[in-house]
Each structure stands twice: as C-alpha cells, then as structure tokens.
C-alpha cells in the first residue's frame, strides 16, 4: 500500500461527520431521538485519518462515542439516523440506539456502551483473521477511560502473544465524563500501556489530521506486514458535554485555557484553512460541500421521520437463533 495523502477527501469526511453531529445536536431537543447521544464533535480527525488507510473489508469496533467511526468507515447514514430515532430501518431495527451502531457491509462490526467491553471483541476478530488467514486489520477505538479497565490489559497481552493484526486506537480526550485524566492515572502518556505489553506504539496530536494520517498509515502498514498489534494514542478533546447535545463548560470542570486551547485547535477549521491556503479548496467549494452534506443529512432525517417504528409484534424475534 502506498501512503494516501488525499487530504481533500479526508477533510470532506471530517466535515460531513461534523455536520451530521451538529444536526443531531440541533434536533435533539425535539425529543424524537430518544436515546443518549455521545457526540464526537472535535474528535473527527482521528476517525477520518485512521479510516483513510483501512479498506472496506477491514473491521472496526467502537464505543458509546461511535458516530464518527461509523460514518468515517462508510456506515450507512440513513440507518444511523433511523436507529437514533428508534425506527425500523435503523441499523439495529431500533433495538440498540446510538451506542450500538454497526454496519457489517462497511466492516463496522460493533459499538458497545460498556466501557472497555468492546476491546476484546476486536482482538477476537483479529484471531479470526489469523485463523482464517484473511490478511485484514481489526481496529478498535476507545477512550482514555477504557484503558483503566483490566480488560484492556488482558486484550493487549493476548494480541501480543498470539501475534494478532489488531490496531488499538486510544482517543485521549482528557476526560472520563467529568473526571480529568490526571485524577485517574499517573501520566497522560498512555503508550506506557503498549510498551509494557511489548506492543509497538505511536502518539500524536489527534487534532492534526496530517499527523493522524501519517501515523495511522505507519501503524496499519506495520500490522499488515508483520501480523502484530499496534497501539496509537491520539490526544484530542470533545467540544460538547459527555452525553447530550449541549456545551457544558459553564460547569467549570474543564480549565478555561484548556478549553480554549483545544477549541482553537479544531481539526476541521485548521484543515479547511490549510486546504484553502494551499489552494486545494476554495471558500466557494467549501460552501458547496456544506450544502451537499446538509442536503444529504436532511434527507437522512426525513428518511428517519418517515420510517416506521418497528412493529411491537417483532419484539420477540431474534432472542435465539434456532
């Protein structure tokens, strides 16, 4: 594989995710999306940069904060918005809600709300890849909180001793809900938990899309060549409340200068400016992009609105697969 420096595509991908989530935030108070939502706004570069080097056939796993990963990997937008509305065409037929997004056709295997719980599943998929000699990558996204759960360590150790093609992507947004990383761990360098398991690792600013793109390439190349796990820490920040559509910095749990530092380091605005500077994009083209996406998003919401609710009579199906 060659390094893909298709930054305009990546930018588009990020922009689209941002617009989808802003629309969710805008409409959330209408109470038609009746499930908790954990928005990725501010953290899009990681999803877009990593997915840039994963193929459709590669597998990804995600958490409660899964919208960006789902969209970046090519998950179906209509099915996502329908799922948030609890409608029949949702990816889970309305059974899961926003924390259970998946789209097998796009290689999005599972998103799970219990912190850390999805990590061993991705390792298990990597075991399948090894046993079936599929030559794919299994990638798992998780937060700085998830690495505190014991199961992360059990997963890392197993991936290493079994030589499994799994990419661990830790998105360090410095918080678990309202609790800062430094109250929970002795250091913000989470790669120490890759090193200790003898797993190769990298760390960079997760809001710098060119770094993310380069590091993701390096990691994924390494995995494909060596059939060994790899760990990347991306430092980033969420813009809005942990769960829900609003900003919540009036609660003062995050330092003002930290907030402003990260808000000014917005991956999408920075990249847009760079692309315009480098004459890869014009303001006009950007506006058009936005219009196109808003249209698509509007259609998705219309689709979800018009979609029927699942028939209560179907509630009993699929408990068992006889």
């Amino acid at each position, binding site marked *: 594989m060659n390094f893909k420096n298709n930054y305009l595509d990546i930018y588009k991908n990020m922009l689209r995710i941002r617009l989808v989530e802003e629309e969710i935030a805008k409409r959330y108070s209408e109470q038609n999306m009746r499930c908790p939502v954990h928005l990725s706004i501010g953290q899009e570069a990681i999803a877009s940069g990593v997915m840039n080097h994963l193929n459709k056939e590669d597998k990804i796993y995600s958490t409660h904060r899964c919208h960006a990963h789902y969209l970046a990997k090519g998950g179906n937008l209509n099915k996502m918005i329908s799922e948030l509305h609890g409608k029949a065409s949702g990816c889970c037929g309305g*059974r899961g809600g926003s924390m259970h997004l998946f789209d097998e056709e796009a290689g999005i295997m599972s998103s799970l709300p219990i912190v850390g719980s999805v990590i061993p599943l991705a390792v298990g998929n990597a075991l399948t890849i090894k046993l079936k000699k599929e030559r794919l990558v299994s990638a798992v996204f998780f937060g700085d909180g998830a690495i505190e759960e014991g199961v992360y360590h059990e997963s890392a150790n197993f991936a290493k001793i079994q030589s499994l093609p799994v990419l661990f992507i830790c998105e360090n947004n410095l918080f678990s809900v309202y609790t800062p990383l430094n109250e929970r761990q002795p250091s913000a360098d989470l790669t120490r938990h890759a090193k200790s398991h003898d797993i190769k690792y990298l760390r960079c600013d997760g809001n710098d899309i060119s770094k993310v793109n380069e590091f993701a390439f390096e990691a994924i190349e390494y995995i494909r060549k060596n059939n060994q796990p790899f760990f990347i820490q991306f430092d980033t920040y969420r813009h809005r409340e942990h769960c829900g559509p609003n900003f919540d910095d009036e609660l003062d749990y995050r330092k003002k200068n930290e907030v402003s530092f990260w808000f000014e380091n917005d991956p999408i605005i920075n990249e847009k400016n760079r692309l315009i500077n480098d004459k890869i994009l014009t303001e006009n083209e950007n506006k058009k992009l936005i219009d196109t996406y808003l249209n698509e998003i509007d259609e998705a919401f219309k689709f979800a609105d018009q979609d029927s609710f699942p028939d209560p009579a179907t509630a009993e199906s699929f408990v068992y697969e006889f």
Partner: protein
Amino acid sequence: MNSSRNLTLSDALCEATHQAMKENKNVFVIGEGVTDPKAIFGTTKDLVNNFGVDRVIEAPLAENGLTGFCIGSAMSGMKPLLIHQRVEFALLSVEQIFNNAAKTHYVSAGKHSVPLVIRMIIGRGWGQGPAHSQSLEPIFSYVPGLRVIMPSLANDAKDMLYSALKEKIPTMFIEHRWCHYVTGDVKKSASKINLDGPKVIKKGKDITVVAFSYMIYEALLASEILEKFDISSEIIDLRILKPLNLKPILESVSKTRTLICCDTGFREYGISAEISASITENLFDSLKKPVSRIGLPNRPTPSSRALAANYYPTAENIIMEAKKILNFTDDILINMINYLKEKKPNIRADVPNPLFKGPF
C-alpha cells in the same frame, strides 16, 4: 424534633449518606462520578465539599478492582459505600462480590466482617437500551451472605441506606432510576431500623400483592383502581430480597388466600418464582388460585420506545392478574381499565409516570 419534609428519594439517599458520614468517620464513598457535577443523580451532592477527597473518592474506571478495594478496606476497619451509576457496571465485579464480599464472614467463621454497601442503579427509559436497563437482583439474591435491598419509598430508602451503613453485612442496595424521582415525607434525622424484611404498606383483605422497588408504584395505582370497584388489596413492599423473610407474606396470604408477585426484572427465574414456590409450599391448601407472577418477558430491553411499550408491566397487568384470581366480570375489568386510562393518560413508556411523583 424529627420534623419531616417532602423530598425525592434521591435526596433522601443523599441525606442518609451525609448523616452516616458525619456520625462515623470510617464511612467513605467511592465511585465513578461521586464528586462530579451530576453527583450520581444528585445522591452524592456536596459530599466532597463536606468530607473532602479522602473520604469521597473519585474513582478510575475499574469496577472489579474498586469492589476488591472496598472489600479489603471493609475487612480492615472501614465502611465503604461504593456506587455504580448502572447495575451493569457491577457485572464486572461479580467475582469479588460473590466470593469475597459474600463469603468472607462465613469462611473466616465470623472472624472477618465485610461491612460494605454497594449502591447500584437500574437504568430505565430514554432509550437506555439493552445494556443500561437490566434488573439483576436475582443474580445477587441467589448468593447466601449478601443482603439485597431494593427501596421504593423515600423515607424508607433513607433509613435503609443509613441502617445498612451501620451494620456489617455486605449489602447490594439496588435503586430503580424511576424511584429517584418519587417524593415522600422524609424525616430530618435518620433512624437505625431493623432490616428484617418485607412490610405491609397498605392493608387490605381480598388479595395480596407483593412488589418491590418501582413496581410498588404500579401496585399502588392498581390497588387504587381495584378499590374503586370494592376490591381491597394488601400491598407488601418486599424491600429486602435477601435474606428472604417470608413471614409477613405468609401472614397476609393466610388472610387473603391469594397472591400476585411483581418483579422489576424478568419473570422467568425471577424473584417472584421463589416467592411463589415458597408461599405455595406453605399455604397450598389455603390458596384459592395459583400465585400470579408479573415480570418482564424473556428478551433483552430494546432501545426504541416502540418496542419498549409492551415490555414493562404496569398497573394494568396487575389488574388483569387480579381478575384471573378473583374472577370479576369482563365488564368490571373494562371499567377498571378505562378508569386507569383516565387517571393515567397516554404516557410514554420511556419516561417516568408523573403520577408517581408522590408524595407517598
């Protein structure tokens, strides 16, 4: 001077904790979010301001470890109160709870105690979905050595939490999120009460209804409807699922000769199965009809409100079971259901019934 005020059950729990911590400096609180702005749905409000970070410990994400830390610290002289925002998070710590919390007093032939209280909250509504909504009390109630408490009334919740923190028994204190909103007269001071079992919270003579936690409110509503039609029901709040004290239930059923049991969790292999089996063993010849059980159907909780609608049992189900047992006419049933619908207009299945705000 023990005046009382109308408080929510969550405020009552918060008060109990403040009072227990004030009285006993060995009590400490630990959990993910206990010091944060949301303060575990308000139940740990101001604790950290009053007692400091040494005694109100914000925890990393490590539920299994946390449970072990609390057990070790309980065995060595402290009285930890561990809090999980969802009972599901405690699933990671079942080994610690079953083997170390439940058995240490027994295995050490009484030499060690594990005076630990674990608060766990059953999520419900607003699309919580399959992994944030489970009623897991039968899992814990199966294990000798554990105490399992599920409060329904605000003042009782306060007294039970406060009393559990005074005793030495490893206690699973399971709260239904919708009970948090319920209000009631709550005494200012906290009382050490006997945690000895179920309580008759409404006297009656025609039919006994055993329920606990949130289902108490559905039972009270059903009871009100039944009463309109001259059927008098006795409601027993089970309160303490383990160790199980059947006496108050036996007494009531000896009188009414009928019984409906309501679970917040699954019907199959649920709490009501044990109550039904035990009561039937003891009162087989007095029972007019087999014991009725009400609980969730055999499937996970879907997120969509369309699928959740017929999932959770309500007062209506209780009334239907009462009809089966007491054999009143279809006409009366229809009238009852209509009356219920009037009292409880089209409420969405995914938000708490405002009727149930209390005070109770």
